[in-house]
């Protein structure tokens, strides 16, 4: 259990999670889950699932919000700091170092050629990620009915058009779309919940 671990041990566990995070987000998620649930029993399987659902409602990097919750559950406020710093330090330093190294070789002709090849791949991967993000939402909307699906598609297209053709701040577009879908779901849930008038 967590109470047996010294603060140093706790920090070094998160540091090693950070050092192992080369595989990107999905791999890191699996590592954190295994460490927190199985190896150190900071949190139960069920609590982990519950906390992950909550994390998805919070802005920013989901893994950081998850780390904050687990860190606090294990060791309170100091645990939050140790877990976050441990997880982020290796990858932040590596990212900065790689960027610094890159600026020294950026002018080389081969590097420019490589970058020209990488851009279409980045765009393709980004579109893939977008599609992965949209798919479960559109599927749920499809199940809810034609209007819900249409609204979802309109939001995707309209937000894209707005960012392409207008000067409306992106944050405003995102918030407006959130409010639109939020009120729609609220209204339609209320409509469903209203009981049929009792005859006679």
């Amino acid at each position, binding site marked *: 259990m967590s109470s047996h671990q010294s603060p140093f041990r706790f920090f070094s566990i998160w540091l090693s999670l950070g050092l192992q995070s080369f595989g*990107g*987000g999905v791999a890191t998620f699996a590592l954190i889950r295994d460490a927190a649930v199985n190896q150190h029993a900071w949190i139960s399987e069920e609590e982990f699932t519950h906390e992950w659902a909550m*994390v998805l*409602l*919070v*802005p*920013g*990097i989901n*893994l*950081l*919000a998850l780390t904050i*919750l687990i860190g606090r559950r294990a060791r309170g406020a100091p645990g939050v700091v140790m877990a976050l710093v441990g997880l*982020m330090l290796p*990858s*932040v330093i590596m*990212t*900065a170092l*790689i*960027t*610094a190294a*890159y600026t020294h070789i*950026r002018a080389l002709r081969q590097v420019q050629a*490589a*970058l*020209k*090849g*990488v*851009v*279409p*791949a*980045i*765009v*393709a*991967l*980004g*579109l893939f990620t977008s599609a992965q*993000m*949209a798919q479960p*939402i559109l599927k749920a*909307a499809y199940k809810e009915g034609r209007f819900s699906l249409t609204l*979802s598609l309109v*939001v995707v297209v309209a*937000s*894209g*058009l*707005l*960012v392409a053709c207008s000067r409306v*701040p*992106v*944050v405003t577009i*995102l918030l407006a*779309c*959130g*409010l*639109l*879908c*939020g009120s729609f*779901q*609220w209204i339609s*849930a209320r409509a469903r919940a209203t009981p049929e008038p009792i005859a006679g």
Partner: protein
Amino acid sequence: MNAVTYFWLFFKASLFSSGGMGNLPSLHRDLVVRQWATEGQFAESLMIGQISPGPNGLWVVSLGYLTNGATGALLAVIAITIPPFLVLLLERVYRNIKHHPAVSGFVRGMSLAVVGTFTVVLIGMLHGTGSGFQLRGMAIGACALTMAGTRRVPLPLIILGAAVAGVLCY
């Protein structure tokens, strides 16, 4: 470059978005308009973000470094670390709002808007970096998409493959 404004742009973009890459459209708009970043620097930082370890959301650390040196990287780290702390506030009210349709609807709408704006910014990046809509670029993009679709090839490997293809093609 005003450090306060610079930080605010990173912070605002991360606070009002979802996921680690959701801040891209807002940052792109704000930094490019001010000429604090170029289309190329966005492409470069996304590339480095994919290659380097950690959550993909750390691509902004690279953007910070490219546009404003070590200070920029530090400001970017702070800006992306604060918003996830909202989870501690959410935890207090979560039990009451968990099943409220407006909450899930809000998150849904925001995610859909991230998809829409993200797509437009990405396509603009193809155009803006001159990697454009030519056959070679399209072929590399199609290969990357196919490999990602199998879900078996690690993303950094796809990026490295595209880099090799770039050296051979251009």
